[in-house]
């Protein structure tokens, strides 16, 4: 097995980073157009995971995640505009259900696509200011989450966690107390090291999951549970240490940190937390 990104994948990652740095200040719909133009929605699973990691890194506000990893794997195509899917049986907390142009419903007979406007979606206000989630009336749906949907959430969480860690590192190198940078204190270093290990572990399992989907490997469902569980565990550690190491500054709205903490946490809460996926792994 080869577990390092190849040159093309590294190049894609560079392009994504550069693009995201440029579109940062643009309104949401302009960003969305850029992603469509660049063909990111059509990327194969591993490349998609790389893109999502970078989008997670910037707490992207567009409906990319739901469109690429919820709608697309269920319907086998891309939507006109943006899309999402309802597959958890309850119809509650569906990502982007209030704004998607098309919604895929997983029913006992298969997949049905309805225009988003036809769906009476009720947006739910949540802590993450950039997040769209809504309840839809879909109680008769079957349950079946595509592996790619779990992997997409995991990749996004990994990106958010990386961003939190980077912000923490920047902060503890600059801020001094007791006449020294915080980062020279070992209690701080050890937390940072544990965060790094958690990110590396989750990222490896996320790439593995994407790879099993790309190659339709029999381990794919198991791998998707692992990725989602590891990303959830990672965000929990990174949230806790990240906020703590910023001190009171981390407890403010003005600090960018809050956006990423919330994004990482959301990715764990949607479609089953780490604990649920550890349990699922045992029976996968």
């Amino acid at each position, binding site marked *: *097995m*080869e577990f390092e990104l190849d040159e093309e994948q590294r190049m894609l990652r560079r392009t994504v980073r550069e693009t995201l740095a440029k579109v940062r200040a643009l309104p949401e719909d302009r960003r969305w157009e850029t992603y469509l133009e660049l063909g990111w929605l059509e990327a194969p699973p591993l490349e998609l995971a790389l893109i999502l990691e970078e989008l997670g890194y910037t707490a992207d506000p567009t409906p990319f995640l739901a469109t690429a990893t919820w709608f697309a794997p269920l319907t086998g195509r891309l939507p006109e505009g943006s899309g999402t899917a309802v597959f958890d049986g309850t119809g509650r907390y569906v990502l982007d259900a209030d704004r998607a142009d098309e919604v895929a419903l997983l029913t006992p007979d298969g997949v049905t696509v309805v225009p988003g406007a036809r769906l009476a979606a009720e947006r739910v206000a949540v802590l993450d200011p950039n997040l769209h989630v809504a309840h839809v009336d879909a109680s008769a749906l079957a349950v079946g989450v595509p592996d790619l949907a779990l992997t997409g959430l995991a990749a996004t969480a990994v990106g958010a966690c990386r961003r939190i860690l980077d912000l923490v590192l920047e902060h503890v*190198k600059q801020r001094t107390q007791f006449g020294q940078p915080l980062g*020279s204190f070992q209690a701080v270093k050890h937390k940072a*090291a544990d965060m790094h290990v958690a990110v*590396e572990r989750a990222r490896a*399992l996320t790439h593995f999951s994407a790879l*099993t989907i790309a190659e339709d490997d029999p381990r794919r469902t198991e791998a998707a*549970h692992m990725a989602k569980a590891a990303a959830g565990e990672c965000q929990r550690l990174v949230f806790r240490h990240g906020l703590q190491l910023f001190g009171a500054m981390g407890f403010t709205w003005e600090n960018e940190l809050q956006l990423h903490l919330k994004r990482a946490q959301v990715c764990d809460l949607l479609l089953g937390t780490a604990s649920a996926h550890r349990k699922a792994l045992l029976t996968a």
Partner: protein
Amino acid sequence: MKLADDHEVEEFRARFSAFLDAHLPAEAEARERSRSSAHVPDWARRWQRTLFDHGWLLPGQPPEHGGQGATLPQQLAHLEELARRRIYHSFNPQGLGIIAASLLTFGTEEQKRRWAVPILRAEITAALGMSEPEAGSDLASLRTRAVLDGDTFTVNGQKIWTSGAHDADVLLAFVRTDPEAPKHRGISALLIPTATEGVVRRPFGSIAAEDDLDFNEVFFTDVRVPRENLVGPLGEGWRVANGSLGHERTLLWLSYAERLEDLVRDAADVGAGQEWYATLRMDLTALRLLGYRQLAPDRDPAEISVLKLLGSEAVQSASLHALEAHGAEALPHPARTGPYHHLNNEVFVSSWFERYARSFAGTIAGGTSEIQRNIIAERILGLPR
């Protein structure tokens, strides 16, 4: 990135597998336990020799050093195949994986011929003398002194925790040759035959049992060592030590992967249905994946610390969970009477209690978890020292 091995690795793995089928000695099933990490039972000496002669001992090396010039992915496949069958290729892991490996990197041609090759052929065994009573994590503060006079060093001082020294023929010892130089300079690496006059070894028991003798204190009193036993340039021992530690940590992460795999198998009966068991499987998968990634060219060697930390801590927490899941059933201690495992020199058919206690070897030896965290924070994440 791809899941499948490329053709060359697959072919290599199949060839090794066929070799094992044909050559694995029947005695491997014998219940003869090794006494220490530098004691090699007779049948195991022959086995290591067979591996050497066929180029299957250290496949990455050239044929004269027990290899066949294999690529890194092929070398990993080789180790995986051994682990899968729970086969150890050497009962003297420090000798093979650290000391011989260091000599092949830093040694003279004569040192390779005289020491490295005999270690590889299991004709002699070796132990690693780094730690001292006052120099553990802070290895660079070691005090054992060697004074060079003409062509002879005279060594005085003490080492401790030297695994298997009482069964070893030679020590790779780190000594201070220049007391005036700054801490990290002035250290040199010396090969010291244990039979030399003035070398006294005192083995002592581990946490597992009073007679579980692997640890040693080693005392040097006016020990005379010829200059030709100096490994690397005089005063450059720190570089050799870091090279050795690199070999050691590589060896260690692979051994944690094996250990985790054993745990996945052995803990299945109590673990099935429990979340910690899922975590164990995730840790194993992640460790292997990160290990594969480390094979790519130009990886930062500091990243081995990620593997060591992740692997050793995972083994420890999984053993603790297994212990807890067994409750009082974890108490009986079959180590003395239980079956000796197929070619496995770690007596891990012992109780969960013992397995948990032994798991601390991983979080302490070869640089503690705290030291690994320091390395990750400073060398990978760039935090100030």
